[in-house]
């Protein structure tokens, strides 16, 4: 079966790049492909030799380069850390982060359901006391004053030390 020109080319390239078995088999049977591969191999080996020669440098170049690498490494800060020191610093950072996170978090709000039952009870007692009183809470100071006045003897003149208590008021009381 006749192969196309492209197939021959592909076989040559395949043989050259990956040395595949079918390509090698084809080259065994095809003289023109063998010749082409040989020609390409020659070109590539010439290029390789030229590239090696072009990049080859005299001995002092390599010595100077190695010395520069040495001095750069010696001057560079030591960044090589052991596994232990890495772990320690990682844990320390993690701890610091957790601490900051806890500090920065807002204080939890106490919900109604979380209030203590005692405060409810106290509130209830206060309401009961207020109801049992005869006087409203707003008039309580006046009530206390009247109680105080009645506690003293009827003949005694109550001493009204308070400056807010006017003379007219004191006359009226007397």
């Amino acid at each position: 079966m006749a192969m196309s020109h492209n197939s021959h080319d592909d076989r040559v390239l395949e043989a050259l790049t990956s040395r595949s078995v079918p390509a090698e088999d084809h080259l065994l049977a095809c003289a023109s492909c063998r010749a082409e591969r040989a020609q390409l191999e020659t070109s590539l080996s010439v290029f390789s030799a030229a590239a090696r020669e072009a990049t080859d440098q005299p001995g002092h170049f390599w010595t100077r380069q190695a010395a520069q690498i040495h001095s750069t490494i010696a001057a560079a800060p030591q960044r090589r850390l052991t596994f232990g020191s890495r772990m320690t610093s990682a844990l320390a950072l993690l701890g610091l982060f957790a601490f900051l996170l806890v500090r920065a978090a807002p204080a939890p709000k106490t919900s109604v359901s979380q209030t203590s039952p005692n405060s409810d009870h106290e509130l209830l007692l206060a309401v009961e006391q207020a109801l049992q009183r005869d006087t409203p809470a707003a008039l309580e100071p006046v009530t206390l004053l009247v109680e105080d006045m009645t506690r003293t003897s009827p003949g005694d003149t109550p001493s009204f030390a308070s400056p807010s208590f006017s003379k007219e008021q004191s006359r009226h009381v007397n």
Partner: protein
Amino acid sequence: MENVLSDTVRPALSTQALSIAEFDEVVRTHQRRVYRVLVLLVRDLDEADTLTQECFLRAYQSLSRFRGECSVQTWLLRIAINLAKDYARNRRARFWKQLVGLSTDDNQRQTLEFACPNPTPEKALLVRAEVQAVWEAARSLSQQQRTIFALRFVEELELNEIAEILGLQVGSVKTHLFRAVHAVRNKLKEQQWR
């Protein structure tokens, strides 16, 4: 012949306890190959020198990350190729800066010149043309294809080694190499017809 790191140095590398003096031995063993690959990738001798130094500095600084799963050579070439990629990116940025007048790079750097290994003048001319054709073809390739081409045909690395360096499947390496060689062959044919 350059060898992969000797067995006496390799365990020391994997235990991350390598002194600078011991690392000097690694540098001496691999600096030629690293430099050569970088020259082929960046096409600038001065830049390749700088990048070679940078490559070894980075390697030393990241010794603790080297687990010995690949050879030191593979590891170093991987660093070198990444540096070359960064360099290409920066060069593109420099090009645009130059274009809009932000940079005044004088472009007087020492670029790669192929000397002819053959002494006969006639043959020298032919060989030079042939090398130039391959080089031009290589220049027209993508960064990835050029890297693979250089590693295969200049450094003579095996396909699996190239795949390991570049973090690719062997099949992908084969495909890139196939296209690269195809381009090179076309260029050589063009040159023959002239």
